[in-house]
């Protein structure tokens, strides 16, 4: 078991290193200079613009040779310093992200987990009931084939524009200072609901179908037939099938996280939700290297942690891998 995890940790470590390096490099390989853009918005007279450029390059360390920037990036990272944002001028990247992160996590974590959970439940139910199968299956296919933002658009249109019962944009009512008061929490929940629903529904559809299909495979497995021959009731067989079908679904969860993150990014843009998605979008438009790096770092760490958790859960749930790791016979 230890060797398994140390091996995993090495993989994760290497992946982290490579991924972060790529995310560091890509913005810098692209044309355009963030400082130039910043200065351009200031419309400064010629002399001033050069001098100000020099100041900002120094502030952001962009006057250093590229290898030095790379090294400083890692040293900064180790000290928990992600640098200064360019888009949100003068704010440390970490504080910019810290403001947006709760919104994104608040959307993503429930949407992923509830979507996964409910999808698997309903998928398993569909596999055993014809009526449910005939309704859940088509609905599931349509949902999982729906682009996140289009579902978001539809929900926004119906609930925000036509019925006008839910807000169309933002994370809470603009200008309402955050507090632990009921009006603020209510406002938070109202703004949260539609983006959450669009993420949840798409995920739900995919998981429901996946579960339904895997269960059908499992019900055709030898152990199911054997149990049937020994007169075991369908209830027991279904329970085993469900349990075994969960395993590929757990692995699938790890693979799906990247896609859901992408979905969250666009959904946030549709609803102008103040999470990482809107931030990424603006960081890109403003060539904000530091903010981009910082957000990526969080996404990468998030995805890695999620993957690791899934790995651990999988090991706990599937005796085959667990036994394999204990050196048991395979």
């Amino acid at each position, binding site marked *: 078991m230890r060797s398994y995890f140390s091996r995993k940790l090495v993989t994760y470590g290497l992946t982290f290193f490579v991924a972060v390096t790529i995310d560091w490099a890509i913005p810098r390989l692209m044309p*355009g200079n963030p400082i*130039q*853009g*910043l200065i*351009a918005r*200031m*419309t*400064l*007279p*010629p*002399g*001033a*613009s*050069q*001098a100000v*450029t*020099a*100041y*900002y390059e120094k*502030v952001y360390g962009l006057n250093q040779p590229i290898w030095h920037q790379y090294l400083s990036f890692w040293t900064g990272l180790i000290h928990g310093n992600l640098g200064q944002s360019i*888009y*949100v*001028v*003068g*704010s440390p990247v970490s504080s*910019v992200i810290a*403001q*947006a992160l709760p919104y994104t996590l608040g959307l993503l974590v*429930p949407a992923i987990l509830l979507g996964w*959970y*409910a999808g698997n439940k309903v998928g398993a139910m569909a596999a055993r009931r014809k009526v449910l199968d005939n309704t859940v299956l088509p609905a599931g296919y349509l949902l999982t084939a729906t682009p996140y933002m289009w579902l978001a658009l539809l929900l926004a249109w119906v609930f*925000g524009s036509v*019925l*006008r*019962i*839910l*807000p*169309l*944009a*933002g*994370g809470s009512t*603009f*200008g*309402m*200072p955050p507090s632990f*008061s009921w*009006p603020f929490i*209510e406002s938070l929940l*109202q703004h949260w*609901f539609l983006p959450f629903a669009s993420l949840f529904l798409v995920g739900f559809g995919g998981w429901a179908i996946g579960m339904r299909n895997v269960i059908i495979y499992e019900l055709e497995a030898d152990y199911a037939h054997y149990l049937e021959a020994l007169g075991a009731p369908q209830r027991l067989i279904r329970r085993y099938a*469900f*349990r075994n079908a969960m395993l590929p679904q757990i692995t699938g969860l790890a693979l799906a996280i990247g896609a859901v993150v992408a979905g969250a990014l666009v959904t946030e*843009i549709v609803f*102008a939700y*103040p999470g990482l998605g809107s931030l990424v979008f*603006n960081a890109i*438009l*403003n*060539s904000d290297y530091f903010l981009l790096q910082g957000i990526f770092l969080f996404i990468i760490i998030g995805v890695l942690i999620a993957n690791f958790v899934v790995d651990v859960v999988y090991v706990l*749930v599937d005796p085959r891998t667990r036994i394999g790791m204990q050196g048991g016979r395979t």
Partner: protein
Amino acid sequence: MSIFKRRRGWAGVGAVAVAAVALLSTGGASAQQTPLAANYPRSQTLYTSGTQYGPPSNWNPMVTGNYATGTIGLLYETLFLYNPLNNQFTPWLAKSGSFTSSTVYTLTLRPGLAWSDGQPLTAADVVYTIDLGQYTAVPYHNIWTYLKSVTEVNTTTVSLAFKSTPNYQEWANFLYTYPILPKHIWQSRSLTDIITGTNPNPIGSGPYLYLAHDQTTMVWQRNPNWWGIKALNLKMAPKYIVDVANQSNNVALSLLLQDQLDLSNNFLPGIASLVGGIGGYPITTYYPKAPYMLSANTAWLVMNLKRTPLNDPVFRRALAFAMDIPAVVRSDYNYIVKGSNPTGMLPTWSQYVDQTLVKSLGFSYNPSKANQMLKSAGYKFGSNGMVETKSGKPINLSLIVPQGWSDWMAGIQILAQGAAKAGIQITPSFPAYNSLVAQRNSGNFDLVINNDQQISNTPWSYYQWMFGLPILKTQSYRNYGRYNNPTAWSLVQQLDRTPVTDTAGMKSAIAKLQQIQLSQMPVIPLWYNGMWAQYNTTTWSNWPSSSTYQTVPTLWRGYPNMGSVYMLAKIKPVKAG
């Protein structure tokens, strides 16, 4: 493992479903009520948006393109205000200011000015602020190219000596553009901090105080001790101003329609069809009919004069005739903007337009004429009907605007279609803003649209942008097309040194510049971008309009000191609160 236990799981899902239903039912009720009651009383709060496209993070007036909405105007104040709608300078922090000799300007401050921390605002602050400009990286460094010295005569009087004939136009511009800073706070700061710092917890002199901010909002609170209450008998109407940062105009439109915004300074596509009660929305604008909006600046087609065939004035003039501006005004903007005068002069500067020149050298969309001009100039045309160079190489001009600037993105597609009718092939493309800046500044482009120069006290600002010399390797500020005409540049400088009161002198210099501009066509004026302002009259009324009072209706950077601070005093709450 709990994930396999059914009951608990369903209970969880059930709870979420119940919560969702509860949300939906209560959401319906509260979204229509006033959800803000608890915090900023709705009837005393002005909600606005349109300036801030990112989170407010910076209250440093030196960071000119990024400071939070209202930093200059609501918080820090200028010596004068300038109202471009009636071409009037109004003393603000200054009681008066005038040239007491040909090279000396004497400035008198109002008595009783104070900073929000209680310290008096005196001549020393003015001297400190102007002196800061000696540093190259300070945005108004250019004043020291003609300024010799600044001295404090007494606590309310400052004397400024100029090196020679003052650059009257630039100086007048400075007086209402840059604010006076509190010396007692700023003098201890490092230069880097002054140039690039965020200036949190700012101490200003203006009618509003910093109250709070978060990722999407900036909240200002009325300054009860503001000097202007007594001195100007002005009282700002809203107790709170909440500026909403948003990324998209369609979101702003939603908020405006839902009464969550009172003043939207965003470009709102299709707003024309909603103004005047269509659809029952209480939305109004400055003008009740087209163009609905005042004009804020000119959108210019900047051509790279270093490239063939754009180095040929004949080609450039033909291109001007191929710009289907009426189609842009109609289809892109639904008539909320106006096509530009051939000189590019904003409507407020119409007195400076040389009408005879415009008659002889002006242009309007005429594809067949453009085509004819190219033919008679010896340009060849390919089998597809598209113009080629005189040596028979195909011409395909790339026209760039920044990614995400939706009205321009649509606009250049319309322009490209119109130009094709004249036989000129234009390919629109949309690089990211910074990428566009890099291409533009380094001269690596064919065509780009630019509107950096805003409405101001003087057409000089337009001409120095158009003809500015010298041409550097990187043109970071002006003359992106790299038009090299020393005659024109000296005329611009001559204009600069013409006193603002000498209208005749200004006109004569400008006429000469317009002669060069229209015949050489270094840039092509397209349309006037609107001074976007949409008012929701549910909570606040008495907005600036052609029929009420003439004040610029936007809180964009630079506009409070062009008079919109008056708007804040003149609007009236619909319900007393």
